[in-house]
């Protein structure tokens, strides 16, 4: 039995490092007058199995382990990382990280103390990487057989199961030390449908989160994914060209929250606002959305893909209100940008791995439900587009222009869903698109757990959510005049 706090136990048992070692490396990183230093130790194991052409074609298993040492002076950061975790390599990394500091002074004393973990959002009985690979392979076989049995037009099935277990340990020069073990699962189903004339269309559905993989190993877990992928592929076989031009758009609940992520989420990240390169810079307290629009980023939702017990700087995640009743009230912060802006960190300092510097990033970003009946919202639109499913999006933070791809859409004619139309991109201006929200549904939904956000070459898992929403006048990038 050991009464060491969890982070120190991990340091000792996982990496052979004592509290004194961590303190010595942090002290070394602080030499030459650095303001702040931290260490990030990570060990991630991942396995995946994939099926195509009816064959479980390959399995793979990866181990990535390493440490990053960071020093900060004012706006400057020095970072060095290595995949060798020894006291010697940590000291070398600390030496490299502190080269950005130009002051004098020797190594400084640091005393680390573990805080109690703030919440336990993903207590799993079985780590996904510990679920026997045979069970994952069996699942792929069932998915393949079921998908092909659904419709003779399904000519190709691609499916995969990805399991990850990420263990992190963060120690910082303010004495904080935290650790977390972050499981993540994802099941992907992609089908190709082909009609008699040889036209082919793809349908995709995925699901996942920081949950027991067992949830997807039962038919009630995986069948809805296959049903949805098959439905989308068959639907698109009959879809016509999408209209082009500016029109009223109704967004379906759930994954359409990608719009919030692109249109406002990135623009509210602390780094762009500190530097004044975001179209939202300096707009705290101003109206950026219609009354009734409240947008939240919440890293504390149990089991969600975008949730974390602590961020990658060791701070507890929290629920942050970004837009309240249409007024911009908050930014997403990591330690550096919070300090430089004189604000509090918000638990949004995230990094892809030990090979990357933390950046302010989103977790689960969604709009709170409104009062309107979703069917009533649809009935209120005479002509427009109903956008039901989406691919990825992107934003130009500085001009505020965002774009995202629609993968399932219908014309709205006389308040009803009309013919399905094929994917097109929607484009708009982040700082004003939410001011044109006219109706907010009572049906907030979160996505199925497949979102990945890219920024500065770093990918992190995120979540989004939205109630049914009517926006007046969005540009739809189809081909039909």
């Amino acid at each position, binding site marked *: 039995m050991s009464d060491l706090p969890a982070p120190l136990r991990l340091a000792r048992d996982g990496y052979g490092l004592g509290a004194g070692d961590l303190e010595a490396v942090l002290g070394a990183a602080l030499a030459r007058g650095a303001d702040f230093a931290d260490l990030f130790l990570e060990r991630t194991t991942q396995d995946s199995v994939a099926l*195509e*052409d009816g*064959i*479980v*074609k*390959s*399995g*793979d*298993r*990866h*181990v*990535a*382990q390493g440490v990053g040492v960071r020093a900060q002076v004012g*706006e*400057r950061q*020095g*970072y*060095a*990382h*290595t*995949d060798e975790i020894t006291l010697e390599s940590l000291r070398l990394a600390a030496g490299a990280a502190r*080269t*950005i500091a130009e002051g004098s002074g020797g190594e400084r004393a640091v005393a680390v103390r573990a805080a109690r973990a703030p919440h336990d959002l993903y207590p799993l009985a079985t780590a996904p990487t510990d679920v026997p690979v*045979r069970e994952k*392979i069996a699942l792929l076989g069932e998915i393949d057989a079921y998908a092909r049995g659904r419709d003779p037009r399904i000519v*190709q099935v691609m499916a995969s199961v990805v399991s990850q277990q990420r263990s992190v340990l963060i120690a910082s020069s303010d004495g904080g030390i935290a650790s977390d073990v972050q499981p993540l699962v994802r099941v992907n189903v992609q089908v*190709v449908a082909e009609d008699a004339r040889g036209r*082919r*269309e793809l349908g995709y559905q995925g699901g996942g989160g920081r949950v027991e993989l067992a949830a997807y190993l039962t038919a009630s877990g995986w069948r809805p994914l296959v049903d949805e992928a098959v439905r989308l592929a068959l639907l698109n076989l009959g879809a016509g060209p*999408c209209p*082009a*031009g*500016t029109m009223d758009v109704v967004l379906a609940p759930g994954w359409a929250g990608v719009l919030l992520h692109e249109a406002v989420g990135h623009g509210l990240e602390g780094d762009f606002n500190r530097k*004044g*390169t975001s*179209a939202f810079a300096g707009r705290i307290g101003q109206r950026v959305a219609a009354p009734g629009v409240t947008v939240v980023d919440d890293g504390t939702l149990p089991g969600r893909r975008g949730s974390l017990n602590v961020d990658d700087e060791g701070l507890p995640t929290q629920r942050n209100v970004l837009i309240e009743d249409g007024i911009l009230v908050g930014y997403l912060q990591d330690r550096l940008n919070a300090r430089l802006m004189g604000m509090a960190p918000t638990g949004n300092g995230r990094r892809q791995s030990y*090979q990357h*510097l933390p950046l302010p990033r989103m977790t689960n970003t969604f709009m709170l439900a409104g009062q309107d009946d979703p069917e009533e919202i649809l009935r209120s639109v005479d002509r427009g587009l109903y956008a039901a499913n989406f*691919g*990825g*999006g*992107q934003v*130009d*933070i*500085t*001009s505020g*222009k*965002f*774009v995202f*791809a629609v993968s399932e859409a219908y014309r709205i004619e006389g308040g009803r869903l009309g013919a399905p139309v*094929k*994917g*097109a*991109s929607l*484009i708009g201006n982040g700082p004003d698109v939410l001011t044109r929200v006219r109706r907010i549904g009572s049906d907030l939904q979160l996505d199925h757990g497949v979102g990945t956000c890219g920024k500065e070459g770093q990918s992190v898992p995120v979540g989004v959510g939205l109630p049914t929403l009517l926006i007046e006048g969005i*540009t739809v*990038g*189809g081909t*039909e*005049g």
Partner: protein
Amino acid sequence: MSEGPLRQALARAQRRGACAADAVLVDSESREARVRGDEIEFVTQERSRTLGLRAFVRAPGGLRVAIGSTTDLAASTLERLVDETVELAGATAPDPCAGLPDGGFATELPELGLIEPADRSVPLEARIADARRAEAAARAVDPRITNSQGSDASSSFTRVAFGNSEGFFGEYESAYHGLTSMPVAGADGAMQTDWWVSIGRSLAALEDPAAVGRRAAERALRRLGSRRVRTCRVPVVFEAITARSLLGHLAGCVSGAALYRKTSFLAGKLGHAIASEAVTVVDDGRRPAGLGSRPFDGEGLPTRRTMVVERGVLKSWLLDSYAGRKLGLPPTGSASRSPGSAPSASSTNFWLEPGRSSLAEMIAGTERGLLVTWLFGHGFDPVTGDFSRGAAGLWIEDGRVAFPVHELTIAGNLGDMLAGIDAVGSEVEWLGGVAAPPLRIASMTVAGE
């Protein structure tokens, strides 16, 4: 040094029951610095080594396969990884197409100019100075350059070692140096950004840092005052850097798995006209100092030059050995391989051969249309070829650039777009392994107001 862990992993895999295996060790060292205004924003330094193993196990009806990778090269971790990979292979299904290539491994490894060894000793301070020069030059162009997202200098040096159970062993070193500048222009309460980059295998191949900064600033400045236009169908001219993006979509649609999966709109079109006669596309893995060059591919096969599209006719796919067997065709030395994934076909240096027009002539020959200088979003469906992406650029009226435009989409089908290319520029701009000259497409839908 590199051979040790590779040979150990291959030998152990065979002892554990693998009938064949290959392994790759990627050893890299890199550094990067960003300067914003007068301040260094960050400096990063890294050293990483990753070993990847692919193991095959014989079974009735074919071979079973699994991949394992680790950054932890301690003997005990490596042994466990090998054992787990062979065990995992035993759990997958036998696949009649799986296996190492059927011979033909690279016998000579030509010198491709992928590294200048002296660059290794260039201190980080010199690269920081480059970033400072780019940043200062960008800011000096015009008082309306009010801010920036920084100027970034990076250098990385990589050694790839590869071996297989057939006795092939090869290694090569390469370097990648970049300099990027991302200034912000501001006027009348609106901001616009743009960027420029220079990338090369040696520091000497990079553009002058001040020129990179100036070009980035000029690109950002010309976006100031952008407006929207009404939805219309017009000719669309692509600058080299946006044309390159179209070539990237094409590369994905002629490569490997997309063809036997039929997730490419070009599946089944080999030998057919898929583009206008102005279009000739080449993939060459041995282009001297090319950003996609390598002496052998991710399966140890020699890289080569492949004519992909000749005067509009689709001549060849880019194939790894697995995709080749699926299609009954020989591999083209196109397997790309990261330690943690199976080899899969991708382009190396993939470009559209230059034509005769200059960009200025294309603009002058366009009565009314769009010059695309910025493309964003992910609206391309390789299965159908449907294309719809966000765009910004310059509006052309009477053969002249009239004003900047933004918040537009351009849409069409890539098949129709390739067929509609009616002018190809004379200068290919190399900003990566995929490259193109400027080009014009006769008609696309531009969605705006």
